[in-house]
């Protein structure tokens, strides 16, 4: 009895070893469905695992036709779905950015207008206060145009808002002349240059 048991154990051990090393052919379980190794799944599982690594078998003619048909359908679908310009997904709030940056630009422009207006007010006051030519102006002007300084007479001054300059009109031996007076952009807005324009 003991000998029979040892013999049976040896057979099982030998079969499972063969199965594990892939000795059994692929149709072993088909031919021997009632075999212990097949019923317990030892051989099948081993065959399955060997299938993965084995080279793929060539499909029959009907199978390959079926595969080609599927591939063609897939390609056709891809072609019809293809779009040359893919619209990117928008996550950032660009509407808000658009409005905020425009508001920033307007804010900066408004501040600039206010600053310019303040400067012009001060320059206008300066310009309107001119009642006569300072001696240094007369001296430089007469020297440049080689005229008698005493002949220079002040006729009036007006402020030009657009170019932020004071226009002073004079009459002299040189005739009627216009003198563009430029002021500093900071308080106390003193005059720093004169551009003479004679006809």
């Amino acid at each position, binding site marked *: 009895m003991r000998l029979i048991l040892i013999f049976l154990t040896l057979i099982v051990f030998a079969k499972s070893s063969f199965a594990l090393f892939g000795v059994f052919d692929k149709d072993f379980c088909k031919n021997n469905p009632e075999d212990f190794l097949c019923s317990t799944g030892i051989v099948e599982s081993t065959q399955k695992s060997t299938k993965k690594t084995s080279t793929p078998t060539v499909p029959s003619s009907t199978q390959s036709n079926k595969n080609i048909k599927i591939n063609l359908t897939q390609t056709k679908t891809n072609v019809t779905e293809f779009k040359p310009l893919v619209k*990117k997904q928008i996550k950032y709030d660009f*509407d808000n950015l*658009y409005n905020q940056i425009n508001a920033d630009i307007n804010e900066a422009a408004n501040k600039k207008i206010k600053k310019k207006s303040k400067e012009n007010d001060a320059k206008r006051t300066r310009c309107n206060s001119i009642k006569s030519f300072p001696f240094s102006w007369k001296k430089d002007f007469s020297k440049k145009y080689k005229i008698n300084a005493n002949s220079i007479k002040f006729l009036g001054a007006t402020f030009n808002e657009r170019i932020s300059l004071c226009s002073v009109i004079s009459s002299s031996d040189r005739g009627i002349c216009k003198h563009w007076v430029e002021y500093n952009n900071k308080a106390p807005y003193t005059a720093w240059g004169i551009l003479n324009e004679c006809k």
Partner: protein
Amino acid sequence: MNVNNFKIVLSLSLLLSSAHINASLKDKFKEQKKPKKVVISQEVLDIRDDINKTWNAIRKEGNVYYLMHAKNIRTKSNRDKKGIVYYKQTVQQIFPFALVDNKVFVPISTYVGKSGIYWKGKKLSCDTGKFSSGRYVRFSRPTPVGKLNKDSIVNFKMRYELYDSDIPQALSSQQEFEVNFDTKECFATYPSGKDVHQCHITTFSDFRRKERTNRIYNELYLNKKNLENCKVEN
């Protein structure tokens, strides 16, 4: 104290004082060599991060283009050559812009000085001293110029920059532009405003001038350099 003792004391004091001067200069030199710790306020860093995040979003979610005078195109091949466009070596009359979420933004480069710039309602100003010191802060604002209409056409006012490596310095309204993003057609007026010429748009990648586009991309950020002299006002 006799004369000899006085001489000894005097020479010793001279030696000690010279040694002290040497030591102090050495220390001063060492101090100079130490890397100065740059302190930037958190508010300034937050603005910088937001500016950079905005440009990143524009680049990621939109497309960046060049708009140029059509005279920059050397030859335009036929359909057989897959519509490849060749550009002249020196491209002039050009500016970059971004199209994102049907809105057109043009980067306008400006220096952040004492008078400051506005970013989302906050004022960022930098006291960087004289311009020649090299401590200036440059900022490129994504300036909105127009929105696409239902026909994918946008009209806006701008002016060309001289070279393809330049970012516009000011939003000038000298020239009118009309771009159709469906047909890729582009038309613009001359600064005189009389005649109309054809212009051309291309993506940065299609323009194939990597070093120049990289340079522009680098200027679309506000970097950390010189920001220690900046402050934020609400």
